[in-house]
């Protein structure tokens, strides 16, 4: 009903559909409304010159889990007909811009909605953009992104990750700054004047328009060449079997006791990671008992070490640990891999203590001394 044959022949020449796709990669629940506001903002701003669009969430991400990476999208086209090429999909196969609204997402993302860990640039087209809200520099962020398979531009709009809850929204203008930055990256699709006019009209608040301009003015960019980035991150990819290969009766192998799931690891949900001071640990088992993801393994010496591949960074272990600063939550961007650190403590305790101090900013105190002198 929406389109007729007549508009088809007038508006678009066959095979000439033009559209622009933007994805927002975000932390499930905490940034859901933020992602939605950015995507809606893109479509509504482009409507000002009679372009049309669609905004939607990656269906398989829902119901969202706290912190688990998820995606929402905005697809804009000059006409309804051209937009059809962007509809009835779960996600665009190729995007012009991937927006990460938490900079720890540049380390790669594993979600409920897809299989394996994806580099942040995975769907970004050749010479497209990865736009990150961050207080780090583009150079620092490139160190943590997967080695680029094709060139893209890394853009940073200043600001920390804006987290809220399921029922509340933290209205700190992150959405407006991102919309301003997008206008800078896609001037042909999202002219800054349209974005400002759209925000002015819908919010009637000049402060928000100022934030749009701030994002536009302060976005920093850096070209990333093919091959730049790190190859320290795990490759986590799967082949999906065909119907003749699958077990009949909707059955999959269960994990045996003690085995961890090799197909779904969840660590990309982490923004902070627990670092354990094995010197001050009193081996009380609380972390081991209370970790919701059963991340702790007992070492032969009776310590409790974190299996970082399984840890979602919820911070519960740090909360329940009775010893001050024995488990410290540290910014995930400071780490470059998931290797288990107890081996280091076991073999070279001093090297471990040095590492602990470097990561946490706290003195590593020997187990013979009380922990009370640890920094706050």
């Amino acid at each position: 009903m929406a389109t007729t044959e007549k508009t088809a022949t007038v508006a678009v020449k066959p095979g000439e559909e033009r559209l622009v796709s933007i994805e927002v990669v975000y932390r499930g629940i905490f940034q859901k409304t933020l992602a939605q506001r950015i995507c809606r903002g893109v479509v509504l701003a482009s409507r000002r010159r009679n372009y049309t669009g669609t905004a939607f969430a990656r269906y398989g991400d829902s119901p969202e889990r706290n912190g688990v990476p998820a995606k929402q999208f905005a697809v804009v086209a000059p006409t309804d007909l051209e937009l059809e090429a962007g509809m009835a999909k779960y996600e665009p196969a190729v995007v012009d811009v991937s927006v990460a609204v938490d900079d720890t997402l540049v380390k790669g993302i594993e979600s409920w909605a897809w299989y394996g860990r994806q580099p942040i640039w995975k769907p970004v087209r050749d010479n497209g953009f990865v736009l990150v809200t961050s207080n780090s520099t583009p150079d620092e962020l490139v160190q943590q992104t997967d080695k680029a398979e094709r060139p893209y531009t890394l853009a940073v709009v200043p600001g920390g990750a804006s987290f809220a809850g399921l029922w509340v929204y933290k209205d700190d203008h992150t959405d407006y700054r991102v919309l301003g930055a997008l206008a800078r990256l896609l001037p042909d699709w999202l002219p800054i004047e349209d974005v400002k006019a759209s925000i002015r009209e819908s919010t009637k608040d000049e402060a928000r328009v100022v934030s749009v301009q701030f994002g536009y003015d302060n976005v920093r960019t850096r070209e990333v060449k093919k091959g730049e980035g790190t190859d320290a991150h795990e490759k986590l990819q799967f082949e999906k079997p065909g119907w003749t290969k699958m077990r009949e009766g909707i059955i999959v192998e269960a994990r045996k006791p003690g085995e961890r799931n090799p197909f779904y690891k969840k660590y990309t949900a982490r923004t902070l990671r627990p670092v354990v001071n094995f010197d001050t640990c009193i081996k009380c088992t609380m972390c081991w008992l209370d970790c919701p993801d059963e991340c702790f393994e007992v070492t032969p010496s009776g310590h409790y070490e974190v299996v970082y591949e399984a840890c979602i960074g919820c911070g519960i272990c740090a909360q329940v640990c009775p010893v001050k600063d024995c488990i410290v939550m540290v910014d995930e961007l400071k780490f470059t891999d998931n290797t288990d650190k107890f081996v280091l403590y076991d073999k070279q305790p001093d090297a471990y203590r040095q590492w602990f101090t470097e990561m946490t900013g706290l003195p590593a105190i020997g187990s013979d001394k009380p922990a009370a002198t640890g920094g706050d």
Partner: protein
Amino acid sequence: MATIIEKGQDAVSSQIEVEALVTGCEAIAEAIRLADVDVMAAYPIRPYDGVMQAAAKLIADGKMDVEYIVADGEHSQFEIVKHACAVGARVFVGSSGVGWFYAMEAIAVTGGLRLPVVAICGNRALDDPGAFGTEHNDSLAVRDLGWLMPWAETAQESLDLALMAWRVGEDKRVSLPVAIGLDGAFLTHSQTIVKIPTQDAVNKFLPKYDLGNRLLHPDNPITIAPQVDQDWLMEIRRQNDAAMRRAQDVIREAHADFKRLFGRGGDNPFLDEYMTDDAEYVFFGQGTLALPMKVAIRRLRAQGHKVGLVRLKWFRPFPTADIVKSLLRFKAIGVIDRDYSFGSPNYGGVLYHEVRSALYSQPKRPVVLSFIAGLGGREIDQNMATQIFEKTKQAAEKGSLDQGDTCTWIGVRE
């Protein structure tokens, strides 16, 4: 540029048609508001629950006044509206997938009772396993039970078909329930620009619900659904059948009125044809699969192929006359089903068997092929569209299909 509003905020007071960026579910909620529904019953299951949330928000924001009853399950949900409908309330209800099946006992009797309940089935694969994507077997399970069954392609069409649903279902010549099919995710959860009509225009289109002397009320002592036996049931079924047959003309009438008032709806109430004027073969299907197929058609046309699409808008009543008239113009019809009928005559889709049956009495028939695609909500991409096209084209050139080669599964991993 029409006025853009945020999710219907000002639509309530607006005197001009406004636009909103809304999902298919939110568009349905706008239709509930515009139809001035009296009672709706809710119980959450994805993707239908998007309507539940959108309607609840309209009520909470003071934009809609409807008795919103959260039931203890889908069975009660459909019972509640059935009863409300009998006492003169305009009603809305909906569900998805297995929730729809849980309500089946209530759904099964609503047609016979001739109560114009309007429901949506947010199409979803049947669990197990827990798949949320669109598949049409949930809606199709009620195809023989006396429900009218329109299917939408876009959020706009969802709103429009919902208004049509109350108008046609409540018409005294029909008085049947309506189950609107909406593809899960692609339609229910994707926001697009939708025109929200004014209350005045809707009032012109949609008369007040009036059950007449069938109203259950102390002033009108009647008993609905007394015990009957073999002495009565065939006559009841035959009445049901007559109502369903009458629905065709009522839909035509309503469609003409809708088009006059709102300027939308296409030329034919039952079929939406795309690039068929000179087509030699066409794709045939319902719901959102029309979107990727239209993109494919433009691509294939650029390569010189005379291909088009016929999209079915009402599965019940099945518009046989319109289908015959339309499809006899082509050499081959590739019917794409987002459903499957295990063990059916040609091991094919439900829609395919219906189309084939509709054409059977014609002396010269096009070749009809069955394609099973997009089950469980799998995206229909351009490669799949090309496969469907190639097979359909070959059949058109050959004029027949090999024995046992009637149905092709598209995009299934071997």
